[in-house]
């Protein structure tokens, strides 16, 4: 006799909860998300449980660079994509510094702000390397920053980038007569050895969304391995090229950077791993909200029936 009103009350409570879940104000969701994100910065960084094949392939490609070759690192990222591209750039440069790999930084046809940002990072990382090892990395001998070269004028990318890449691969000195500091490239010891793409072991494009012209021209026409270091959002677009071996590797987003840092076995926690802790917690929260929202929706469906 008594159990019926009890079950009715429980049903009403469940119904009210389901209605509340369905009508949950988005500001509450954003508020909780902000609180979790802020709080997660005070937690110790998580360990990266496994490293993906695509990131491992990038690491192997850099690792296998012979002494007589250089790596061309196209750094075409700026403030807009620094959240993911900066940790990637740092991880790549740290690796090349550590392995004494000489590299050439370019910015071909995307953003004019990129060379300055890249130079800032190179200065920081060179100082960090010197502090850690006591060895100095010399600009012009160990690495150079050639600066910005637009494709087609006024930053038009797309078809004209093909022309630029074609010309760049044939004669780097013709495309870049001077470096970022307006020093003639012929005066830079490293660039005296690097005349065209033949002297490169690998080409890395570090930007928001690398252009597919890198694959078709540098890989397809000149046969040089290309890897993309890009934002997470575009990783599924390039996965097909990695699957078909047109791309030698992909470092995707913060996760890719954190994986690379794990492979590097850094003494300190890199920016990628630092950002992956809040990223993981926020993702868990989003998943929880999706489940809650669906519970509310399904129970409302049941009520309507």
């Amino acid at each position: 006799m008594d159990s019926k009103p009890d079950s009715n009350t429980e049903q009403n409570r469940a119904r009210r909860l389901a209605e509340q879940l369905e009508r949950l104000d988005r500001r509450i969701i954003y508020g909780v998300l902000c609180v979790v994100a802020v709080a997660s910065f005070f937690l110790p960084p998580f360990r990266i449980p496994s490293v993906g094949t695509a990131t491992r392939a990038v690491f192997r490609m850099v690792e296998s660079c012979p002494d007589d070759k250089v790596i061309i690192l196209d750094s075409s990222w700026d403030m807009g994509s620094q959240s993911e591209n900066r940790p990637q750039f740092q991880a790549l440069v740290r690796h090349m510094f550590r392995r004494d790999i000489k590299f050439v930084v370019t910015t071909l046809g995307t953003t004019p702000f990129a060379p300055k940002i890249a130079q800032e990072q190179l200065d920081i990382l060179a100082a960090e390397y010197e502090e850690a090892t006591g060895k100095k990395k010399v600009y012009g001998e160990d690495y150079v920053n050639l600066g910005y070269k637009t494709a087609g004028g006024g930053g038009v990318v797309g078809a004209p980038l093909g022309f630029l890449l074609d010309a760049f691969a044939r004669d780097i000195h013709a495309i870049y007569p001077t470096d970022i500091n307006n020093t003639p490239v012929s005066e830079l010891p490293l660039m005296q050895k690097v005349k065209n793409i033949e002297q490169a072991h690998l080409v890395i494009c570090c930007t928001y969304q690398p252009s597919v012209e890198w694959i078709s021209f540098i890989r397809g026409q000149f046969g040089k391995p290309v890897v993309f270091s890009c934002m997470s959002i575009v990783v599924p677009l390039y996965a097909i090229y990695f699957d078909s071996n047109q791309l030698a590797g992909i470092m995707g987003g913060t996760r890719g950077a954190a994986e690379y840092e794990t492979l590097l076995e850094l003494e300190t926690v890199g920016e990628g791993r630092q950002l992956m802790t809040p990223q993981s917690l926020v993702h868990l929260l989003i998943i929880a909200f999706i489940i809650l929202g669906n519970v509310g929706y399904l129970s409302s469906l049941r009520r309507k029936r």
Partner: protein
Amino acid sequence: MLAVGADYGDVFKIVEVVVGTITFMIVVSYVFKDNAVYRMLSHILLGVATAIVIAITWRNVLQPNWWGPVQEGFSNIRKGTRDWNVLWLLCVIPGAMWYTLYFKKLEWMSRIVFGMFIGMGAGLAFKNYLLLIVPQITQSFKPLLAVHDGRIDPATTIKNLLFLATLVTVLVYFFFTFRMETPLFKRTRAYGRWMMMICFGTLFGYTVMTRMSYFLERLRYVKLELFEGVFKAMF
């Protein structure tokens, strides 16, 4: 990583970090409610970005590649030396032809440069797609029974079978030439649709990841630059 040599006691650095933090908070305020400060900020940002792009395009592109050689050419001619660099000035003519689009009587002139650019773009796009797509097609031919070191590789075999099934069913889904209403085709299309839905879900997941990265990187900036940089130097 704090910037090496950054002086957090410096007034300009303090202003930079405080403005950066306030700007970030204004931008985030939009997710709670649209407001006048946010709109004002977006207009300022647009104005600043446009001005910077114009300045940089002149300084990094037009000045060194065009105006600089022209100036040098004129200077050499004044000194009595022949210099063909002055001919770069003629680039103004095709450049100006783009803008004849805005005058009805002269509109035909813009079509000449349009045509040139479209022809150039089409030629290059053809080469680009050939170099990009042909390897995709050849790599689609995967062994249905993958053998590695004389032994069957089950993981690769399953992967290849899944790849083939997805390729065929998605192609069938986009086959509109004639109606195919048999149960077999219906099921094939349904499988193709499911595969695409999984792909879109993956894309959406990655999108969330990128959007969250933007937000978290800025939070990290506030923590490092404001709290561990400026505040530590001040107090």
